[in-house]
């Protein structure tokens, strides 16, 4: 091999064998790309879909050897299925109000242990009889608060782990109405003038019968405004002045928009004034008297029987997003 011509072909040989090796590698490698990608992924999309459907549209079910019903939140030991929809007829299996979530059920749902949730919602993969649970995150997000978790009883409603950023997840979002508490609506024209001295036309009184488990949410609208500075002065409960931001918070709603209102801010006759009082103030079996004093506002009703907060109670529902996110 003294003649060094023609060796150029060896380069070509080396090249083509490298190419062939790379080709074999790629052909073997590509199927495994698909395997890791789509199969597991599309399966999880529907796991999330089913879970969200069951949570938002079903009432859940409990049962033991003698009886059964949809009020599983009252029978946590015999839960057969978890569903959050409100049900007014506990004996029938279906709800007439899908997408309306019950506060009691959500609170009970938060207390269930992890293995129950995974088991009951089917958030696992069954490989030859062995269960491998998926990672999951189920949250109820407030649309009005930039999609932060809804807070019920001082607990943010979010279950499971935080969403991992380093892998693919399957997420489904449902729009729901959540019962967040109770409210009472009062028309300022119907509220009586406080007859206790010193009598002021701008002062009204309301009975609140304790004990209460939910915060008091008081909505007053249709004000009769008499001056240039209609505002709210103070709240007095059984003779004690309440302090703002500690015992209560207040705001106003104008055309569906929530605006801040403190004890010096103004409102007008289009505003609904809202007081939110801590339930802890009403712990005893006792009828509390709540005096509400305004400025440049007059109450006209002199008829005496005080209105009772607890008799005007209605459920307050907030629209929210229910998100279910599942990953491997």
């Amino acid at each position, binding site marked *: *091999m*003294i*003649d060094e*011509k*023609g*060796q150029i*072909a*060896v380069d070509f*040989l080396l090249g*083509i*064998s490298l190419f*062939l090796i790379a080709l*074999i590698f790629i*052909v*073997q490698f590509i*199927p*495994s790309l*698909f*395997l890791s990608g*789509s*199969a*597991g992924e*599309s*399966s999880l999309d*529907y*796991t999330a*879909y*089913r*879970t969200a*459907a*069951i949570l938002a*549209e*079903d009432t859940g*079910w409990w*049962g033991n050897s003698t009886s*059964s019903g949809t009020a599983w939140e009252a029978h946590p030991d015999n839960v*057969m*299925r*978890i569903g959050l929809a409100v049900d007014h007829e506990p004996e*029938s*299996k*279906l709800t007439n109000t*899908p997408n309306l979530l019950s506060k009691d059920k959500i609170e009970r749902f938060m207390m269930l242990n992890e293995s129950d949730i995974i088991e*009951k*919602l*089917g*958030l*696992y*993969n*069954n*490989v030859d009889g062995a269960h491998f649970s998926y990672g999951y995150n189920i949250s109820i997000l407030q649309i009005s608060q930039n999609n932060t978790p809804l807070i019920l009883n001082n607990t943010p409603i979010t279950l499971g782990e935080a969403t991992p950023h380093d892998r693919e997840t399957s997420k489904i979002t449902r729009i729901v109405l959540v019962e967040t508490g109770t409210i009472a609506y009062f028309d300022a024209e119907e509220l009586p003038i406080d007859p206790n001295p010193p009598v002021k036309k701008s002062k009204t009184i309301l009975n609140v019968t304790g004990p209460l488990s939910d915060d008091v949410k008081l909505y007053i609208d249709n004000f009769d405004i008499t001056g240039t500075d209609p505002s709210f002065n103070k709240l007095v409960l059984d003779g004690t002045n309440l302090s703002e931001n500690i015992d209560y918070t207040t705001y106003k709603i104008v055309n569906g928009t929530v605006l801040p209102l403190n004890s010096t801010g103004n409102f007008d006759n289009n505003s609904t004034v809202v007081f939110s009082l801590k339930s802890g103030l009403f712990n005893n079996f006792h009828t509390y008297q709540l005096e509400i004093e305004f400025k440049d506002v007059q109450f006209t009703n002199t008829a005496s029987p005080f209105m009772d907060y607890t008799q005007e109670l209605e459920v307050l529902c907030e629209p929210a997003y229910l998100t279910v996110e599942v990953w491997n």
Partner: protein
Amino acid sequence: MRQLFKNEEGVSTIVEYMLFTLICIGFFSIISINAEDIFINDPNDVVMKDEMTDIGNMMSTMITDMYLIVPPNGNIDTEYRTPVRAGREEYTIDADIAYEDQIIEVISQSSGKKVRVTIGGIATTMPINGTVSSSSTNHMISYDSRR
């Protein structure tokens, strides 16, 4: 003969041919031994797993959706279509184990491959049963409150 050994012209061409043939034989033998696996079985496994998971999911999703609207007195039935083959094999959808394990199973008879899909907890309140083979023509899920 001596002449032949002395003449070194064309050697590289011969060596080139030899090397070339060797490499080609090597390559094609690897390919032909593994061809079945590489080009047919592996992709088929992937596609089968995908399709079977998909079909299991379809069943599970339909049953869940249907459960959410079943009439208290009455019936509901829905037809659905499934492909005759997943990959290259026929398969059976089996919902009979749903009661105890909340699972729908899609099994291929010929290779025994199976995929299991969970259903979200409705089997405990509503018995789900039935098996169907992909090769049968009419597929239907039905519910009747009176049965």
